[in-house]
């Protein structure tokens, strides 16, 4: 095993998590440097999505550490952890992440509105991101009225609109064909690199993982990389 030490924007160490009798994580750990794109790969059921959820503070492990900068994510009260997730992290999932009743523009502006920004400023920033991702044309449409590829680009815009330090992407192209998937990955990684956001990219597809800087393999809830947090 390779021991990796030193500063990281985000790091998890010795994470253990069970769901009932099923062991999802059995000591997994990984670190992500500022602006780094790391693919998390492994067979189905290996624990890669649980690792992402623990690093993002969505799921609390039974033991282990998650450090965002100097902040111990697992020691924070729920309310502060939620706020940190909203302001510092972005999320892109495979399905069902856009609010169906809102327009695409309102969806992208939503995280800014939740953080207290005024409607006009939020909409202006959201519009700029829709343009950046080449989907300004669907701003007034609802998610159910756009294609899968367009919907994922809107989701990417929403993930990046707050200027997050880390974007968590779980099979972001899983429901798309090859060409739409490639366009989404290129836009996501280019936009993240421009704004120095790191990406934790869970995928089982090698062509998607090839957009990363390096890969971490999860097998039976463990990673080969052993992270030491002091």
């Amino acid at each position: 095993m390779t021991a990796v030490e030193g500063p990281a924007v985000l790091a998890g160490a010795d994470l253990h998590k069970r769901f009932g009798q099923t062991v999802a994580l059995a000591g997994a750990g990984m670190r992500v440097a500022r602006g780094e794109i790391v693919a998390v790969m492994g067979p189905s059921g290996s624990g890669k999505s649980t690792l992402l959820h623990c690093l993002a503070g969505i799921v609390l492990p039974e033991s282990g550490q998650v450090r965002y900068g100097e902040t111990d994510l697992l020691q924070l009260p729920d309310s502060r952890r939620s706020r940190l997730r909203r302001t510092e992290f972005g999320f892109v999932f495979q399905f069902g992440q856009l609010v169906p009743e809102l327009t695409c523009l309102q969806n992208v502006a939503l995280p800014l509105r939740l953080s207290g920004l005024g409607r006009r400023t939020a909409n202006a920033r959201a519009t700029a991101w829709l343009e950046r991702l080449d989907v300004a044309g669907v701003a007034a449409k609802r998610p159910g009225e756009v294609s899968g590829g367009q919907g994922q680009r809107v989701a990417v815009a929403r993930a990046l609109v707050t200027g997050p330090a880390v974007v968590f992407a779980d099979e972001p192209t899983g429901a798309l064909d090859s060409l739409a998937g490639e366009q989404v990955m290129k836009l996501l990684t280019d936009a993240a690199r421009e704004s120095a956001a790191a990406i934790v990219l869970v995928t089982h597809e090698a062509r998607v993982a090839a957009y990363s800087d390096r890969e971490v393999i999860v097998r039976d809830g463990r990673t080969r990389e052993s992270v030491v947090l002091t």
Partner: protein
Amino acid sequence: MCRVRPVSISHALLGLLEDGPRHGYDLKHAYDERFAPGRPLHYGQVYATLSRLLRNGLVVVTGVEAGGGPDRKRYAITDAGVTDIERWLRTPEKPEPYMQSTLFTKVVLALLSGRDAAEVLDSQRTAHLTAMRELNRRKAAGDLADALICDYALFHLEADLRWLELTAARLAELAERVRP
């Protein structure tokens, strides 16, 4: 067992000798059974390979039985031979299509000798992904024709990787077959 022919007969023979010294005749049959059922090696190939290994100091002759003839020699792997096979197992193959027979040999030999076969697959995965990242960069920098050529290579490397993942998932089963 699948019918695949290892690209490196010499490493396959070295790997088989790690279990203990053998005659050339035994080696040929062990090889045919493990790696090439239905497509046996010629004796000439076996002896040519063994004399090259001998010349390079990777095997030694530990005894010659009365009666003479080339197949009466007993061969044993040397320390240099063990080092050589370890280096071979650790070094990923250059990512290119139709390399599965070499990888298959590496995985079986790693399992036979109790080494970490998952590590062989992991280092190969890293080599493949590195090649795929390079293709992505070429794609981004080139025109549509470049993109189409790179796509072709990317899909083939991806197919290799899917085979690697499936093999990784079947290692426990494969280990039982190889070392009953």
